[in-house]
């Protein structure tokens, strides 16, 4: 039970020294800024922000560039880095049998779950924004799946989708018999793995997204609806011409953040552990190449492809946004 006391103590001491070190840097920065003629208040402000700045430089900016460099080398923990040019990328694109299926699975997963998730969350939020009794209870129930730890979600759905005795296949057995299909091995079959992951993600649809939508819906000015009613608008017209434009900036935010996190799916996938035949997500590939096969150059290349993918998709969404996002006080 107390075997780790030594490790706890050592970590605790180092943990307590870090803020001292950061405070020293902040003080030094403050002194230097004062010397070059900054006034006390701005200098104090930058000093306050400096711990984040240190973290950003050491653990974000530097690693980002360093991993770009590593992606052009054959680095592994045991050997130094040797420049190999585009070899890692060439191997991924032309020879790696797992790369393209993984890219396809990851992108399709994101492109399908995000719109379904956002629309679903909006619909649930619209339902819950009706004046109904026991709304608190409904909200709690709807939120429950989203709060569950990823580990529990993954294990539960792995069991639900179990090919022989999972609840889903048992319930669907008559249907498969009619269609003369074998019971699918959801996480072991490349045709079923995507739907399985999408269904799993749908369960947690009423997450943070819907909570934010719910708040956004109550913020839409009532006067707009009243004006529309005078003009004879019916329910769905109010939804399309008032509600959606009014909350479109929030939809944009949800789509972008949802896309970024969907492309990075990792923990759930590791616990569901789809078979190699069914396919792996890109972050699983990064982990496997880097930390089990120790090809860290190649792993960095995969990570950079994923990074660029996220950048491109985010840019596309932002570029398209003037066409469908409505900001108060700005001409469309």
């Amino acid at each position, binding site marked *: 039970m107390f075997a780790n006391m030594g490790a706890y103590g050592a970590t605790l001491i180092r943990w307590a020294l870090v803020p001292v070190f950061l405070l020293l840097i902040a003080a030094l920065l403050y002194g230097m800024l004062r010397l070059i003629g900054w006034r006390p208040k701005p200098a104090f402000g930058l000093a306050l922000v400096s711990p984040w700045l240190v973290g950003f430089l050491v653990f974000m900016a530097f690693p980002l560039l360093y991993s770009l460099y590593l992606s052009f080398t054959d680095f592994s923990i045991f050997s130094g880095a040797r420049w190999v040019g585009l070899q890692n990328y060439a191997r991924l694109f032309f020879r790696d049998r797992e790369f393209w299926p993984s890219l396809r699975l990851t992108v399709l997963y994101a492109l399908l779950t995000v719109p379904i998730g956002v629309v679903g969350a909006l619909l649930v939020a619209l339902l819950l924004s009706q004046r109904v009794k026991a709304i608190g209870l409904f909200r709690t129930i709807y939120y429950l799946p989203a709060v569950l730890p990823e580990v529990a979600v993954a294990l539960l759905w792995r069991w639900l989708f179990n090919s022989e005795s999972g609840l889903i296949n048992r319930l669907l057995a008559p249907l498969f018999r009619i269609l003369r299909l074998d019971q699918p091995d959801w996480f072991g079959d490349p045709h079923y793995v995507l739907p399985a992951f999408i269904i799993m993600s749908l369960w947690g649809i009423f997450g943070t997204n819907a909570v934010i939508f719910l708040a956004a819906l109550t913020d839409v000015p009532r006067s707009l609806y009243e004006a529309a009613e005078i003009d004879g608008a019916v329910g769905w017209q109010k939804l399309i011409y008032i509600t959606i434009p009014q909350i479109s900036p929030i939809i944009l935010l949800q789509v972008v953040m949802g896309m970024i996190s969907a492309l990075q799916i990792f923990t759930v996938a590791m616990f569901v552990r789809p078979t190699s035949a069914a396919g792996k997500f890109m972050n699983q590939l990064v982990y496997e190449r880097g930390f089990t096969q120790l090809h860290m150059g190649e792993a960095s290349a995969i990570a950079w492809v994923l990074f660029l993918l996220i950048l491109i998709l*985010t840019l596309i969404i932002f570029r398209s946004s003037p066409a469908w996002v409505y900001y108060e006080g700005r001409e469309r």
Partner: protein
Amino acid sequence: MALRVIKRGVLYAVLVGIAVVLLIPFFWMLSTALTAEADIFAWPPEWIPKHPQWHNFADAWKALPFNRYLLNTLFVVLLGLGAELASETLVAYGFARFQFPGRDVLFFVLLATMMMPFHVTLIPTYLIWQAFGLVGEFDPLVLRAWTAWGPFYVFLLRQFMLRIPRELEDAAAIDGANAWQTFWHVILPQIRPALFAVAIFAFRGYWNDFLGPLIYLTDTDKYTMTLGMYFFLGGANEQPHWNYLMAMSIVVALPVLILFFAAQRYFVEGITFTGMKE
């Protein structure tokens, strides 16, 4: 009138229908957790086991040294959470209440880091900790928390601080309070709901963290709950013990569920607030 009643009826039917569909997996999880090993694959299943096997929970807990894993997890959660709350509040204060050249650029960079995939910095970060000789220790999981590494939390806290009326600080300044005193006596009490929200989210983050422990904790004595669960799952060719796995899933989920529903008000307020304001 009749139409209204029908509309209401449909609305409730839909609400209840969705609720039932969402709850079935939970019920299935609990049901499996209480089923004896031999009966797991029985069909039709006993939804409410006649002889609930409560000892499944104890058996599963004892199958691996989960006592130790729990202690390790609590250690990581405590250190990470403490460092994060302290550093993020101060950084947010700097962004919210001080004018300095480059502030807006820095804040934009901070927001942009929310979009950066964790895996792209993974290998160099690992190499940094290796250079310090700290791979295998708890340090890589908690030391970085001092650098306000949750951009979303900094954002949330800053948004809350921007809402505090300036007059309060001006009054404190007239009374001769310095920046620290103002922070401690004026700012902190005002952002309490945001602090709770950050604490809950960060607790869940550390409690659920998988990638960090997977990469950095090499010694089985130092495993956290989540990492322990990963090995509890067994090898690729083993038939998992679903009753034990469901029991442990419930155990792992319980602290998070309890925390979230006990403090629902705070985190709902927290996320809706940042989701809304520019």
